């Protein structure tokens, strides 16, 4: 109990400190922040008694002496190291939650930060669902990035947002915040990376991303979480897709001691389409949690979801895929697949498909497969003269590639695959 109070004391002190900064009360944010922080304090850090966190014990995060991250700069060579090798279009760099660099933007793209944000940028319409952590982000975010795509603009070059944490004191609480607004009939690709400047300094990144896909717009979204093995990452992505809009997400997790993605996507207009794909790779003591919700609110919306995990060492994973089909959402076509490979006996996954269907003319498919590498396939490869290690690597590669192949940005795809290979000790 004392511990709980102390924990809150550290956050409360940080909150008091923040009050003195101009970012705190910008555009009437003071009240919003205070209310959000009160809601967070009243519920506190969730425990495993909370159904949503049953298999994800975040006591190690709650035990940190958290302090809001200070403004920092970063060397170009660090940035270069954390970005894909090769062209990725426009690149925005956000350090400890603050945008530090705005490059020249392609036609049809506007960027806003805290200073220039509109009231609706600061308080976006957010679908219900997810956890208490977006409240913590609202209380503490010191800057935000709003990417707005003009109606009918076709932005071919991807927009990269690199979120870097520089931890040089107590465990910093980093609160990155991104708003993506794709105007009617526009098309854009957004690529987020989360990384640490240091390979062994502890940080807690609590990110929130709001995505608004207007009618007929197409948003291709990639998130790569490659934080260091001692850091913590909780990320919430909240998406609303309007009529005939398309949202495609690839979430790749290859870093962090505890990492959790909450993705909530509401298909809020006829013909809205959503694809949520993901790959997570855990080694050592990593714990990777994925909670997705696809809310079919309107008729004729297809959704596809494939999540794959590879777990080695004592790594653990949680996958919870909720598909909600509301009464009006006739002709829904929802497919969900979750596959996990356990490479050791200690690796573990808890998986739960959660289908809640209230309409009667729908097609919902879910599949789960958990197991070890296919002995037959291994044997087959070996019988063709391929060495045991090569055979294993080949199968792991193929398993991961199944998801990564959907990432249309080639440089991102190859960089991600290289990270996966590195983690699993696969030859590149």
């Amino acid at each position, binding site marked *: 109990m004392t511990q709980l109070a102390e924990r809150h004391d550290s956050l409360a002190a940080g909150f008091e400190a923040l009050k003195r900064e101009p970012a705190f009360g910008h555009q009437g944010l003071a009240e919003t922040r205070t209310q959000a922080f009160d809601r967070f304090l009243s519920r506190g850090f969730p425990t495993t008694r909370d159904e949503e966190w049953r298999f994800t014990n975040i006591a190690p995060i709650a035990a940190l002496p958290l302090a809001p991250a200070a403004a920092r700069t970063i060397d170009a060579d660090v940035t270069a190291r954390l970005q894909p090798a090769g062209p990725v279009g426009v690149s925005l760099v956000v350090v400890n939650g603050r945008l530090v660099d705005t490059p020249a933007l392609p036609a049809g793209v506007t960027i806003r930060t805290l200073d220039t944000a509109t009231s609706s940028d600061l308080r976006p319409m957010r679908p219900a669902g997810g956890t208490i952590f977006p409240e913590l982000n609202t209380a503490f975010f010191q800057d935000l990035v709003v990417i707005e795509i003009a109606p009918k603009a076709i932005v071919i070059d991807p927009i990269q947002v690199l979120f870097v944490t520089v931890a040089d004191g107590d465990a910093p609480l980093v609160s990155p915040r991104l708003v993506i607004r794709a105007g009617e009939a526009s098309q854009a690709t957004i690529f987020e990376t989360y990384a640490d400047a240091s390979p062994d300094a502890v940080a807690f990144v609590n990110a929130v991303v709001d995505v608004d896909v207007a009618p007929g717009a197409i948003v291709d979204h990639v998130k790569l979480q490659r934080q260091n093995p001692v850091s913590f990452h909780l990320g919430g992505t909240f998406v609303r897709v309007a009529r005939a809009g398309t949202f495609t997400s690839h979430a790749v997790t290859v870093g962090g001691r505890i990492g959790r993605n909450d993705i909530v996507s509401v298909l809020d207009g006829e013909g809205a389409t959503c694809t949520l794909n993901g790959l997570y790779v855990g080694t050592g003591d990593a714990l990777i949690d994925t909670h997705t919700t696809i809310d079919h609110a309107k008729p004729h919306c297809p959704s596809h979801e494939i999540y794959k995990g590879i777990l080695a060492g004592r790594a653990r994973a949680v996958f919870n895929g909720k598909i909600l089909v509301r009464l009006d959402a006739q002709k829904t076509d929802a497919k969900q697949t979750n596959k996990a490979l356990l490479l050791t006996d200690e690796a573990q996954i808890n998986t739960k498909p959660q289908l809640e269907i209230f309409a*009667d*003319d729908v097609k919902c498919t879910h*599949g789960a497969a958990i*197991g070890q590498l296919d*002995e037959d396939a291994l044997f087959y490869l070996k019988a063709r003269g391929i060495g045991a290690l090569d055979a294993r690597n080949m199968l792991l590669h193929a398993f991961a590639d199944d998801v990564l192949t959907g990432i249309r940005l080639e440089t991102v795809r190859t960089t991600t695959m290289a990270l996966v290979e590195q983690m699993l000790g696969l030859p590149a």
Partner: protein
Amino acid sequence: MSTSTETIEQLATREYKYGFETEIETDQFAPGLDEDVVRRLSATKGEPEWLLEFRLKAFRVWQKMTAPTWHNLKIEPIDYQAISYYSAPKKKPELKSLDEVDPEVRRTFEKLGIPIEEQKALAGVAVDAVFDSVSVATTFREKLAELGIIFCSFSEAVKEHPDLVRQYLGSVVPYTDNFFASLNSAVFSDGSFIYLPRGVRCPMELSTYFRINAKNTGQFERTLIVADEGASVSYLEGCTAPMRDENQLHAAVVELVALDGSTIKYSTIQNWYPGDANGKGGIYNFVTKRGKAMANAKITWTQVETGSAITWKYPSCILVGDNSIGEFYSVATTNNWQQADTGTKMIHLGKNTRSTIVSKGISAGFGQNTYRGEVRVGKNAHNARNYSQCDSLLIGDRCGAHTFPYLEIKNTSAKVEHEASTSKIGEDQIFYCRQRGIPTEDAVNMIVSGFCKEVFRELPMEFAVEAQKLLSISLEGSVG
């Protein structure tokens, strides 16, 4: 309502084509069941003492049992004293050839399109036909005998191969197993027996057709198939019954014994009378089917269940031996007021055992279709693998589909995959086909056969077409 829905409805309400009754003289017991009936039954069939003992033990166990209630079925209470436990065509006892079969019975089988004719057998199918409770004709027996294959009625097997029957009867489904299996063990009348000697691959499909004809009778057949080491056989059973107002009981037991390295493929096309459009009459089909697979053996159950008012059956595999394989492919349709609660159990005991479950449930009218499946991996079953796929298709909005998959995994090396889907065949799909020029009825057949494809391709080729036709008949009038 729209025109396409009307067509769906019309398709579903086509009538049962096999509902004729054959007028032949029968020997039939008066309704009722007690120890005396069991003894009389055994005596009528001239059975040895050990078999009577088996029946009596089963009867005594059954008396203390109550009918199961865990299923997802609505069953009117059954009066077991109102059923006659033996009915046999009078003119028949020993048949040397097909020509001696009662012409009426033969005509019945002709109407059913059952290949008991020798020319049909050219298709490579040997047939045993069971009329009410008694086997009336077995074709191609001599040819099979040359290979050492025994394919005969169960009663004959008791007389001619008592040691084999005694060794394996109840070895997979003990007489204590469940309410209906115990009842069957007490009163089973006939059925088929197959034995394949070591290393023999049966050169033709073996087949039994079952028909319930007489009124107020139950049919309690018993089938036992033993494949000795390295042997293989493919067997198919088909079932029909006349249309009657009251419900008739069918409680069969099938036991498969697949010894080391052997293969048994057991296919069922079940078309018992399903009752009329108002849910009156129809067969209660309560069946226990189970196979035991020893090392490197493989058992495949394939079933197309279109008939019966109520179907309760779970063809299962006990994968005892290392590297043994169990498969279950099922299409179950329920139309009008039919109910089905069916599925399988795959029990993995040996190492590297594998099982595949593909279940397709189609519900139309007021039909209720439940898939109930269990995959159990024992603690010594290293590297067990299971793949389960369970799809439901709904036609109309008054029917229901329910899925109860159970998993019990006690070995961490197990690899288990599960897929499930529920979809509705509706105006959209049919309109799409029609917009491309394909008429409604063809469209429905196309959609349904596409849905069932993975199961149909497991059926012996001679029967795949028949199954598809049967399916479209059973769903006639259901689609719009």
